[in-house]
């Protein structure tokens, strides 16, 4: 019962946050100087044309009326029409969202693998030079943001040793049989491993750039929790029973040390998704973030609003899922 109430409270605060975000972005972008309508008409358009198009996009009404119209549309799933692309916003945004989600999930997987491996190596060889090396790697990984890692990867693996693709989502020469935008999942589903491999080769560099800072955070926290767990009595007991050090770390210490790291991964995942905006730009990856930057440069107000709301919704959903998983996994909270 308490859990249900907590979830309801969370849902209520979530909607306040989302509406707040909508208000902030709506009013902020309407202060933009520069008329989006003038940008979409050819030079020499008559005053009358401008006025007609302004009315068509509802830009002649007061800002509060515009907000009311937009908000009532949003509740019906209608986010308006993109000014620069002249298509409804929602299908555009939903068409790009899968590319961004696939990139973010791939990055998360890489981060967990690298971070987990580093933490386990550091604990297995604790109090040695290996642990110091892991600490230094964590420190550097944490200090440098994804934007710089992306540039470094472009120089290293795009130019000096051109091994990976540094531009686009898939090779343009390939024939695409896809019906959904989830290319990676769909290529697996269709057993088209050639396409799947091409997608991964394109995604690897941007995903790695996004993953490095998160990998460092995971490694640091997991290593610390593991080291604390290694001093507990039950771990010592299993060691005296004669289990190998690897078995003790993986089967005894890890399950008990992993909970704080899981929560942290959830929170940090939203930061990672936020990072896709600039990373997609750097790697010309056809995702939501890349579209967002174009939308801002083109002053495409309805599209900007749609994208920001989708991002905000994504962030709040992830936070909610993290909190609920934590409550389910942690027995102290489950029975409270």
């Amino acid at each position, binding site marked *: 019962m308490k859990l249900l109430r907590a979830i309801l409270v969370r849902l209520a605060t979530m909607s306040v*946050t989302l509406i707040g975000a909508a208000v902030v972005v709506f009013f902020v972008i309407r202060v933009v100087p520069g008329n989006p309508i003038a940008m979409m008409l050819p030079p020499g358009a008559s005053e009358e044309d401008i006025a007609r198009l302004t009315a068509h996009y509802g830009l002649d009404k007061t800002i509060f009326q515009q907000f009311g119209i937009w908000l009532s549309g949003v509740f019906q799933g209608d986010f308006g029409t993109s000014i620069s692309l002249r298509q409804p916003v929602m299908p555009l945004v939903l068409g790009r969202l899968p590319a961004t989600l696939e990139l973010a999930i791939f990055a998360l997987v890489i981060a967990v693998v690298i971070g987990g491996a580093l933490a386990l190596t550091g604990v297995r060889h604790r109090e040695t030079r290996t642990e110091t090396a892991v600490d230094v790697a964590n420190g550097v990984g944490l200090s440098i943001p994804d934007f710089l890692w992306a540039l470094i990867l472009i120089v290293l693996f795009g130019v000096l040793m051109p091994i990976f693709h540094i531009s686009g989502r898939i090779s343009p020469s390939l024939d695409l049989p896809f019906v959904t935008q989830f290319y990676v999942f769909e290529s697996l589903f269709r057993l088209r491993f050639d396409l799947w491999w091409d997608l991964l080769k394109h995604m690897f560099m941007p995903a790695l750039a996004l993953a490095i800072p998160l990998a460092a955070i995971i490694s640091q926290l997991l290593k610390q929790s593991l080291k604390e767990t290694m001093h507990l009595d039950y771990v010592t007991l299993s060691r005296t029973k004669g289990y190998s050090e690897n078995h003790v770390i993986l089967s005894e210490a890890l399950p008990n040390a992993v909970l704080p790291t899981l929560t942290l991964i959830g929170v940090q995942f939203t930061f990672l998704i936020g990072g896709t905006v600039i990373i997609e730009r750097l790697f010309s990856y056809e995702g939501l973030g890349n579209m967002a930057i174009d939308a801002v440069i083109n*002053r495409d107000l309805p599209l*900007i609003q749609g994208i920001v709301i989708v991002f905000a919704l994504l962030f709040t959903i992830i936070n909610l899922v993290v909190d609920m998983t934590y409550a389910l996994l942690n027995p102290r909270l489950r029975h409270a």
Partner: protein
Amino acid sequence: MLDGRGSIKRRLGARLWLSGTWLGIMALLALFAPLISPHDPLAQDLFAGRLPPFWLSGSDPAYLLGTDSLGRDVLSRLIHGAQIAFSVALVAGLATALVGSLLGLLAGYMRGWIDIVISRLVDIWMAFPPVLFAILLIAVLGTGLTSIIIAIVVIDWTRFCRVVRAEAMNQSAMDYVSSAVVAGRPRRDILWREILPNVLPTIVALLTLEMGIAVIVEAILSFVNLSISTDAPTWGGMIAEGRTSIHQAWWVLAFPLAVLFLTVLSFSQFGEGLKDRFDPVLR
């Protein structure tokens, strides 16, 4: 035990010294940029375009780190870039610290409806992807140094607010605050004279981290061409320029990238080092 602690202390000391030295050098370059830089950072020499750095054949000793595609001196642009980066870091960092800490102190100490309003605002702010928010704000405010600084403050005040709020709440629960309350001192007095001095070390450490973030934000905005004018010698602008000619002249990208990397790393390590130095447990 004693030895272990000694080595940790030495390592922390080395970290502070190394990062501090790099930041000091950069700050001096920034301060005396017009005196030090060998060329005018904007002067173009189309006959000397894409000259390599001094150790490669075909270089010109007048241009130590080579030139970009318009024949502008990379070293001079780096030095003047330091001036822009450090101005943004200092002003934006301090302003962000001021706004965020003030709101954090109020929320953490006053609690009640002030805390509810501020915390809700922080939640709303955290729902925006920061880079998108920054680009959006620059589109609204127009390009220019002032806009960048305002954008950084508007986006990043939450970083200070959250930490300072938590810290102020911790401090408020301590005995010295309770005894000040019992002694009948006014709340405002307790906030400024008791709580603030104890939260200050945290704020200073965060400020150093924030300066590194400000440098990155400026670079990202120059990179997407939304910073100050495109010729201005910003590190981000140099990186954007260098990326387009990466196969012909790698040094135009590599030098600003390396300088940016070391500067951001130093700000972060300096901040972390300060945090540990202030930490009473480690001390």
